[in-house]
């Protein structure tokens, strides 16, 4: 059924045809019922390249409705080119409201970050996932990794992490840090920094993961235990930054390093642009914030 008119009259609401949405919706429900398990689905060719968020886009397209408000971030920012492109895609094919404010969004599609502001009940966080299999770099064969998940045989992962400790003195995984979901499946949280891992645990929001090229969907229901793998003598720890955000003075947030000149001058600013802008609007000021920094910024859309 074609619901769009005008220049995109030949495409269905949210681009996908209804049968495809049904197939993806069934996969999403099974993913929710088996937290952390990767449900195979017949990923469709999307009008953007594989590896650029086609899994997340298919998940979002299958759940989004006219009452939703969508936020899209890449690297924590609403204004990175791929986030802009995906947001524009949904504005065009689903005509939905969009926002940059984490708290106003009903669906947040993300690549590589979880927003700093705690998510709330009813919100859905959709992750774009490049390689959904946490064991893939230890065992390239799907036939083998599937068996390992079936048998709950995760020794290989612990060996890998322990080898890190033996060689480097600590676990050398800084992003896509593996987690154990609801005490059963080891899961790849997508390439978010491990800084964001604790936000996944007992989150009030529903977390959905879409890997288009690898044809997998997985989920973490709200209020579900998500534990980062570690060892008693080497407990999991997140990154910390020595200085606060140079713009909004936030501490305890994830920062991007920005190179300022050719002589090694640099600053650290919030990776989550919405969070930073909100703090600036509230009057927080970091060491490099301009008097009119907030006013000088165009809204991301």
């Amino acid at each position, binding site marked *: 059924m074609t619901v769009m008119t005008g220049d995109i009259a030949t495409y269905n609401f949210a681009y996908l045809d209804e049968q495809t949405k049904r197939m993806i919706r069934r996969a999403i429900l099974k993913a929710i019922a088996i937290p952390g398990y990767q449900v195979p689905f017949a990923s469709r060719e999307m009008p953007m390249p594989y590896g650029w968020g086609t899994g997340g886009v298919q998940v979002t397209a299958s759940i989004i*409705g006219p009452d939703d408000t969508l936020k899209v971030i890449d690297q924590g920012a609403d204004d990175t080119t791929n986030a802009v492109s995906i947001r524009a895609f949904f504005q065009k094919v689903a005509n939905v409201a969009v926002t940059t404010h984490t708290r106003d969004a009903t669906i947040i599609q993300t690549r590589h970050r979880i927003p700093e502001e705690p998510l709330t009940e009813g919100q859905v966080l959709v992750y774009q996932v490049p390689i959904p299999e946490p064991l893939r770099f230890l065992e390239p064969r799907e036939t083998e990794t599937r068996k390992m998940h079936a048998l709950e045989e995760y020794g290989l992962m612990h060996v890998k992490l322990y080898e890190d400790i033996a060689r480097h003195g600590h676990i050398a995984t800084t992003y896509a840090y593996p987690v154990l979901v609801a005490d059963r499946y080891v899961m790849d949280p997508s390439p978010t920094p491990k800084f964001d891992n604790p936000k996944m645990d007992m989150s009030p929001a529903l977390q959905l993961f879409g890997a288009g090229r690898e044809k997998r969907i997985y989920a973490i229901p709200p209020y579900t235990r998500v534990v980062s793998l570690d060892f008693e003598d080497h407990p999991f720890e997140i990154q910390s930054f020595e200085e606060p955000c140079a713009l909004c003075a936030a501490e305890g947030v994830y920062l991007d390093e920005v190179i300022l000149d050719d002589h090694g001058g640099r600053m650290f600013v919030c990776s989550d642009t919405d969070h930073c802008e909100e703090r600036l609007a509230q009057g927080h000021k970091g060491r490099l914030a301009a008097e009119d920094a907030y006013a000088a910024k165009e809204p991301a859309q």
Partner: protein
Amino acid sequence: MQTLQFDAGQFTAKAVDGGFADPVYDAQAVFHALMQANARPGVRETLADRLEPPAPLEAGLAAVALTLCDPDTPVWLSPALRTDAVRAWLAFHAGCPLTDDAGAAAFVLCAQDDTPPAQDTLHAGTQEYPDRAATLVLALPALDGGAALTLTGPGIEQSAAISPVGLPDGFVAARADNRALFPRGVDVVLVSGRDLVALPRTTVVATADGSSSNAEAN
């Protein structure tokens, strides 16, 4: 497995009428309710009044069928639902094949007055592919007013309570046996009128007297 055929006798206005007024938006709305219900076991979702399926197919059962079933999903109907009108309506609106073998069905739809097949006879998926398990959709007289059940598990912060009326005998014990199969297992949706509550396989169901599906499972 039989495939629904359109024969002239069935191809009546009745079969055509009463589906989603707007298949795209209505299916999205029902799916949204199902997704939230599965994400928050025990939390009741209420569907909009958008369907007029032929009796005895209830609106809740019909909404699930039209939202999730299609030619890729074999559906088992409980005896009361096996009327020409229901078959023709499902054939027209969902196009799903019907099966007499509940163990081969992806969706098992059970009317209020029928006894559902035992949960351990339904497809629970495999250890490698636990997602291939069946979904059992049970129509009940009411979701309130029955014996209190306590729910715990993923999706539930502390615990949740439901008190559906008319659950089949041995339901709590069957959920315990099902929970013990995890990650395999059958997922359940309870519907009454336009209300629905989901009990995915992860949910531990306990009666008020304390016998829990988890205790029985272990």
